[in-house]
């Protein structure tokens, strides 16, 4: 593989906090990784820092979860109760299934040791000895790379009773998922890890207090944990120099869809989506315009072209009625129909619905059938009303987990910005997007 193809951002080197060494041949091997400075952070943490100091650095860094919720990582670590005796666990959420997102796979395939080092640092910081990686079942290559990496660590004693001579047992296993998007949700992941049907639990209690097998559990995303080695080596204050006031650091954006250069890009938080989509990813094909984009996976509310100057700051995205989510930027140009896209996404959510709670299970399926009626030319104003009612009753705490809310966001945001397309389809059985496509074809 050419080094260029693996390298993340095409921008200046200062943004390469995560992907700095990507492209180095053999980076997935322990010896190469160590030559690049790998496991220096874990050694430093174990030998020179107390767990509380590691925790403090993470807090100072301002790192926020990169899985989708964007919760302050340092704060989340603090939720694990200090005075509860017995085992506690670290679980890595590697069940990357959000449509449009491939950054975790990118990280694991390029540098599996980066994730392992980060997970070990987290385990040390919260007093856990057992780590599980819940890996999406379809991720064959990451599984093989991680398994080999884990074997290397065991041989070196970095996984074992005394990593780097410190008396803090570290043990790590991979659990492979069986093909369910819902198992990326925290509590459904824990249920699946325990061997049950992957269905979310009612919260509270939260995993930090009662997680895997009822024990305090820290659940973090792959990218979040992969940021830890850099933070520990250089200090939280250095990390906080990147990004914006409330969204520190860098993140990986997976850009896909109608762009010339789809790929995974590491950007400093605060750059605009115009920079990411038009400059980094090359924008849409000649003659096409960006019509709509999903800033953070299909679960994020869509934004139209007019809002391309929105920045990647997590809070700003929330302010404009969207979310940073998983960083999966999906771009759609003007030759494609938004209603069809929404239908396709609803089919995904309805198929992936676990079926535990009524609104998502039934509402998702009902929405799909309504879309099918509309797209088959049998729609009416009543169908638009139905979609409106469904999206409202999927959100705002009605559902047991965020999958329902996400399905609601798809309907709500596409109807908000593209109501004319919906009305075209439902009331007149026409599609202006297809006309545009035909003209340019």
């Amino acid at each position: 593989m050419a080094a260029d193809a693996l390298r993340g951002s095409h921008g200046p080197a200062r943004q390469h906090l995560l992907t700095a060494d990507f492209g180095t041949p053999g980076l997935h091997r322990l010896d190469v990784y160590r030559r690049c400075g790998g496991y220096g952070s874990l050694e430093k943490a174990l030998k020179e820092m107390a767990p509380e100091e590691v925790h403090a650095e993470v807090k100072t860094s301002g790192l926020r979860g990169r899985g989708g919720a964007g919760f302050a990582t340092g704060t989340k670590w603090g939720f694990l109760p200090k005075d509860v005796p017995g085992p506690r666990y670290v679980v890595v959420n590697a069940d990357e299934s959000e449509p449009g997102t491939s950054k975790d796979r990118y990280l694991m395939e390029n540098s599996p040791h980066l994730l392992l080092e980060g997970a070990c640092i987290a385990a040390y910081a919260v007093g856990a000895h057992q780590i599980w990686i819940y890996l999406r079942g379809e991720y064959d290559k990451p599984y093989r790379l991680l398994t080999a990496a884990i074997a290397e660590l065991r041989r070196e004693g970095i996984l074992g009773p005394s990593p780097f001579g410190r008396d803090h047992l570290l043990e790590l296993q991979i659990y492979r998922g069986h093909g369910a998007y819902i198992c990326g949700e925290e509590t459904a992941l824990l249920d699946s890890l325990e061997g049950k049907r992957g269905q979310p639990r009612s919260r509270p209690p939260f995993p930090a207090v009662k997680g895997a097998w009822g024990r305090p559990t820290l659940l973090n995303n792959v990218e979040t944990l992969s940021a830890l080695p850099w933070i520990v080596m250089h200090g939280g204050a250095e990390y906080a120099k990147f990004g914006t006031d409330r969204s520190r650091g860098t993140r990986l954006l997976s850009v896909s869809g109608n762009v010339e250069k789809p790929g995974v890009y590491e950007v400093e938080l605060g750059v605009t989506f115009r920079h990411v989509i038009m400059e980094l990813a090359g924008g849409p094909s000649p003659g096409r315009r960006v019509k709509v984009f999903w800033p953070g996976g299909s679960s994020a509310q869509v934004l139209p072209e007019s809002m391309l100057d929105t920045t990647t700051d997590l809070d700003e995205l929330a302010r404009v009625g969207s979310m940073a989510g998983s960083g999966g930027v999906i771009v759609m140009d003007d030759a494609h129909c938004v209603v069809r896209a929404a239908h396709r996404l609803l089919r995904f959510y309805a198929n992936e619905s676990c079926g535990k709670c009524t609104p998502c299970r039934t509402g998702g399926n009902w929405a799909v059938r309504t879309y099918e009626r509309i797209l088959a030319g049998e729609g009416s104003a009543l169908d638009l009303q139905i979609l409106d009612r469904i999206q409202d009753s999927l959100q705002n705490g009605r559902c047991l987990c965020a999958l329902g809310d996400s399905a609601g966001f798809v309907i709500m945001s596409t109807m908000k910005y593209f109501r004319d397309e919906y009305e075209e389809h439902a009331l007149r059985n026409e599609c202006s997007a297809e006309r545009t496509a035909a003209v340019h074809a």
Partner: protein
Amino acid sequence: MPDGDNLVTLTIDGQTVSVPRGTLIVEAAKKVSVEVPVFCYHHKLDPVGACRLCLVEISPGPPKPQTGCTTPVAEGMVVRTNTAMAVGARADILEYELVNHPLDCPVCDKGGECPLQDYTFRHGYPTSRIDAPRLHFKKPIPLSEKIALDRERCVLCYRCTRYYDEIAWEQELTAEQRGIHTFISSQFDQPLRSIFSGNIIDLCPVGALTSRVWRFESRPWDMDHTASVCSKCAVGCSVMLWQRRNQLVRVTSHENDEIDEGWICDRGRFDYTEVNDPKRLRVPQVGGRDSTWDSALEALVAGVGGKKLGISLRQDVTNEELFLVSRLLAGPWRGARVALQRRTRIPAPDGDTLRIRDLDDCKAIVVAASDTADDVPIVNLRVKKAVSKRGARLVIVNPDNLDLDRWPYAFHVRNEPGKAAGALLELAGHELLSEGPVAILWGDGHGTEDVVALGAAAQQLAARVNGSVMPLYRSTNERGALAAGLAATADDLEGCEALICFGPPAFSRIPSSARFVAVWDTVLRPEHGSPDVVLPAVSFAETQGSYTNLEGRVQFLRPVLPVEPPLRESWEVLCDLGLRLGVGGIDFLGIFHVQRAAAEAIAGFAALADPPPPQPEPTPVMYGPARP
């Protein structure tokens, strides 16, 4: 009893209420007669918040509605169930449940006592905007001989699978597929075999799980119901007997937290069809031909005269009948051998024994020489609850594996058959029993154990570990028979020349030595052979009387069916017999007189002096006759 420190005051829909700490909002709302509809919540199952029907607005709290079934009350909490958001949320969820729900009401057995119907009327939208085709499944699916599953009606509240998992510790029911295609099925499509399977019928809030025995029998409003006591084993669960047109049409649970907590086993629930059997005995017979009570009783007295008499008693013989039989045995029938169907040989206990509800508070439970799921099923469920929900440790003393072994932390002492007493004594000082109170349940190992030695060992162990014993009798009224002094006389009726068989014969056969056989039962059974005299008996659904359960608790039956002549009540027949035999002071005018006399004559029947009034207090009907 909740003390002042343990009470939390909150406001629900403007009304103030104080409830114990830890109460869930839906339960607190019931106290002020506010109905928060629920499907997946059941007060005996762990809350999950799956169906989302109980959404209410809580302040202080997030701006979105919360599920009332998973949220415990907090001091000063303000709960509103009637704001636009909560009302709309509930109506939306109900609409969703109905999207795929078939329009089966006219043919669905749940109609009339169906929470989905009731909630839709009370909380749902008045009109429907659903005209899309619904999901279809093959239906009905027979889950067992007694239970049918209708997947189209299922609202996926998961009460059935959770009940099986949490309460019964079995995995017979599971959900397959996911999302809208989820359906309930039995594991590997095998029929349900558990003795606890019937409770899912009562749990199911819609007509998805229905009783095949009661299928299409009746509408709830056509039935009269009465709370009575189950007659199938010594636990004595509270049951509800339902009758329509003088037929006993179904049996459900009448929740009694002292004993059964709302569960009954399949024996109690489904073994009632004998009452309506068309071959039910109604007329006395002599020599195989219909006769009169007069002739039959004369023939009986004559046939028994001068012979060695054996009396076989049905396991659910009532206290009153036992008293009268003891009067006959004190007089003209002195020396007769008496055998009680299905009895253990456990003698009467020395003092008080552990109450079933006290299992909840035990820190450790020892189960010795008994397969509780078979002998005392509902006590088995109570043990499982104490172990899995209240942290009790479990010690099993048994040669074989039991269902209780499914608990991963159970400690199983595998004794040789007959050596349980020694194994029990060795447990004194075991660290699992170091914290009391300890419950020691012990049975007769189905005849393999020396019950006297085992009883003594249990008492010794109890004394050493701050424990109490619960001997597990098997016959419904074994303790009543012990109190009347009638249980322990005969192991075998072989050698008796005359036999009076009240109910099914003890040891399942008439002794070959019997030259005269009189049968007094509800139906004629093959085991009865061809008796000389047949007397028709009233069933448990027609009997007035009482049983003493294994705790020593006297519980009174309430008949739901009238006694139709020529059937006569048992006490009446026994008094008639007594008069013919010349027994004095047996001409009682009514059942209450029998009970008062029994209370005075026998110490264990003292409670008979104060029977409850004939009509039960009306239970507040919030959800319809059978609980949701």
